[in-house]
């Protein structure tokens, strides 16, 4: 379970997240929607400690992420994150990209790591690209590789930070299909996304962020289907 309590985050004088409280239960899919600069990506980075916070607390399965003694490297094994930029390790093949962290972090043997990597790459539909370098892949394939790379650590949580925003429109579908597959398998996920239709379809809950706070949170039918706040109505009108 991820518990976010009154989190504040500033970059210098600019406060980006202004007191956010929300919980994400095991097996739940929560989408965060909202305009750019609303603080949604920043919050995601705070959950696995890639960004620090100024106030409040974030707990993952009871572990305080921003406490001094917390071993972040250890915590991050359990929280996969997929970024807007797919961040392929260009000097490694697709298979090596996915094997790297299991080898280095989980200390698996070469053959064990390879078995895990092959399984996850097949899972995302890249079983035929194992020996290829990422430079030869399309954006959608690279993003699916990034998803497999995160899954190879057997995380308990997956965070998606606008995973389809940098893709050509015709490549968005294949990545969304992979994410949908994970949701159906019961993965706990937080999606920061601009794909409103997709959010409505896969999410258990949707949170609308505006100016660093949650304006509305509830079921997709509530927040997207029947929004109550004028800001939510206006935002949905501008993206749908």
């Amino acid at each position, binding site marked *: 379970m991820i518990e976010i309590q009154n989190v504040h985050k500033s970059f210098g004088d600019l406060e980006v997240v202004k007191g956010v409280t929300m919980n994400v239960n095991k097996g739940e899919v929560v989408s965060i929607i909202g305009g750019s600069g609303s603080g949604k990506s920043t919050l995601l980075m705070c959950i*696995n400690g*890639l960004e620090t916070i100024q106030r409040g607390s974030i707990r993952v399965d009871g572990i305080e992420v921003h406490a001094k003694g917390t071993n972040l*490297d*250890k915590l*991050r*094994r359990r*929280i*996969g*994150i997929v*970024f807007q*930029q797919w*961040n392929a*390790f*260009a*000097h490694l093949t697709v298979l090596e990209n996915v094997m*790297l*962290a299991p080898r*280095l*972090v989980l200390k698996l043997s070469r053959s064990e790591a390879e078995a895990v990597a092959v399984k996850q790459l097949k899972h995302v539909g890249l079983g035929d690209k194992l020996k290829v*370098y*990422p*430079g*030869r892949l399309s954006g959608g394939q690279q993003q699916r590789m*990034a998803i497999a*790379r*995160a899954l190879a*650590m057997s995380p308990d949580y997956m965070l998606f930070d606008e995973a389809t925003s940098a893709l050509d429109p015709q490549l968005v579908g294949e990545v969304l299909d992979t994410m949908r597959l994970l949701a159906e398998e019961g993965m706990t996920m937080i999606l920061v996304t601009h794909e409103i239709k997709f959010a409505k379809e896969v999410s258990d809950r949707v949170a609308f962020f505006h100016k660093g706070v949650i304006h509305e949170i509830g079921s997709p039918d509530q927040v997207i289907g029947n929004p109550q706040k004028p800001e939510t109505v206006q935002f949905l009108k501008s993206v749908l």
Partner: protein
Amino acid sequence: MFSTDLTSNDLIFLVQGAWVTIELTALAMLIGTVFGTLFGFVRASFPTASIPLAFVLDVFRSVPLLIQFVLLNSAKSIVGLKISPFTVGYVVLGVYAAALCTEIVRGGVLAVPKSLRLAARSLGLTSLQDTLHITLPIAARVAFPGWLNLMLAVMKDSALVTWIGIIELLRTAQQINTRINEPLFVFFIAGLFYYVVSWAVSQLGNQAERRLQND
């Protein structure tokens, strides 16, 4: 008809000189690469804290090599250090190469996108693992052509050690020319030696580069 007093012994002498040039270059590049990589990472990772280091390296980059050779060579005599001019030669060249290599490596490290490091850290890699397995190999791809240029520059600059009495390729050519007085021909041959070595280095470099850019 063309005739010359250049003997086969002279050619052997030239080859010996060329070998000294190659040895100097290899040793200097070894020193330069090890320290340049280290300093380059420090410069890229702690830009403010490493300003004193940058200043020292700047001195070695800016003072003409010839002055550095003569200064260190005289200094070791005054202090009474028992090191050969050859050692002085590759140490000075090595420090000079390190100063230049630092900038090449720094550029390579800064060219690795920050998001790539975040991705590595988010998978649970430690800072050191990220540096060794992600940042270093990707920075190396960026830095390699500059490093190769540096090696060729160091090889040519190594000719300056002749001033502290080391007999390398250029010096052998001068000595042969003093005897047979055929400057055009002798220096043409010496130039050819430099070219052949450079060409071989470039070819090896291109091959290595193709392997590095495996895509």
